[in-house]
């Protein structure tokens, strides 16, 4: 995880590391967006633009899915914003890594646009090993590579729409969950980390039985995250 010695080298190191897997992963998760956009009459440019401007698969799925269902723009906006609340804790936990010397508000706002689950799991795993002064350029490299791949694969999905074998189609949809899981497991060190991951897997099963997916996810994050936090604070309070 050598990040090079100058900001420019750190940027390209970020690009190179992202191209080892996460950028492709994020791209592949965007393959499904193309056909959705096509269904509601968006041009290929509009589909790619949705990936550049929104850069979050769940929000894009909600956006195009609700247009297809004929919902009003107001209810679409509400549903999209609900799906995006999860970006808040991700952005907040990433910011300390990016607020090094020379961090200006515009730079941080731009950086925050790259926060998506794939970029977040990869960055939280890699950034602690990057020299503090080079973390921001490194992160921009990861983000730029992921965004390029997102655009490419959105266009590809738009052109291919519905012409792959079902087993391959299932595999495509399985790629993202598998990558997220491995990244989380690889990044977990403290008992608190395992509690957060374990609760994240179990709680949606329980809450999903009596709540909608968005509310179930919200409660899962809040309860599981708080439990993990309490365990970590307790461990810090009395070092065994």
């Amino acid at each position, binding site marked *: 995880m050598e990040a090079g010695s100058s900001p420019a080298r750190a940027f390209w190191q970020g690009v190179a590391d992202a191209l080892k*897997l996460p950028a492709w992963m994020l791209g592949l998760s965007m393959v499904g967006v193309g056909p959705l956009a096509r269904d509601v009459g968006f*041009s290929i440019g*509009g589909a790619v*633009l*949705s990936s550049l401007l*929104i850069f*979050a698969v769940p*929000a894009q799925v909600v*956006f195009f899915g*609700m*247009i297809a269902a004929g*919902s009003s*723009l*107001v209810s*679409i*906006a*509400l549903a*999209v914003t609900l799906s*995006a609340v*999860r*970006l*808040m*804790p*991700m*952005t*907040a*936990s990433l*910011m300390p890594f990016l607020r090094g010397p020379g961090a200006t508000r515009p730079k941080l706002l731009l950086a*925050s*646009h790259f926060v998506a689950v794939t970029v*977040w799991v990869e960055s939280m795993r890699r950034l602690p090993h990057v020299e503090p002064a080079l973390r921001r350029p490194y992160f921009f490299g990861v983000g730029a590579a992921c965004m390029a791949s997102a655009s490419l694969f959105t266009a590809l999905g738009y052109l291919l729409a519905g012409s792959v074998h*079902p*087993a391959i189609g*299932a*595999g495509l949809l*399985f790629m*993202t*969950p*598998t990558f*997220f*899981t491995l*990244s989380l*497991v*690889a990044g977990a060190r403290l008992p608190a*980390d395992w509690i957060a*991951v374990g*609760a*994240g897997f179990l*709680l*949606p099963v329980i809450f*999903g039985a009596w709540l909608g*997916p968005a509310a*179930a996810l919200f409660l*899962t*994050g809040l309860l*599981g*995250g*708080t439990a993990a*936090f309490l365990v970590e*604070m307790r461990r810090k309070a009395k070092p065994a």
Partner: protein
Amino acid sequence: MISSGALSGDLAAYLALLVAGALPNGVWRWATVLLTAKLDDRSPVFIWVRHVATCLVAGVVAQLLLLPSGALAHVPIGVRFGGLVFAVAAWRLARRNILIGWLAGVSGLIAAASFY
């Protein structure tokens, strides 16, 4: 209220994308940058927020597999979660190599899915 069913032409589509897609999604990213600007990086808030985010991501995975869309919905739930366990096992055996674990999990699922 404007009905999106009446979207006509590229301009209306781009406008809808901006107003009902990009803005309501991005606002959480920008607001967080501005709201956390004054917080100490070592404050417990960031520890809490990191665990909430981790838990949310795990929750997203669980939901993607519990309520899958498209072709993945035709694969039984046991196979979906089995594929995940297989990926983690392969990752462990391959000395914690994520690419190998991932390839094993995805190809295992594709192989299993071709029976359904």
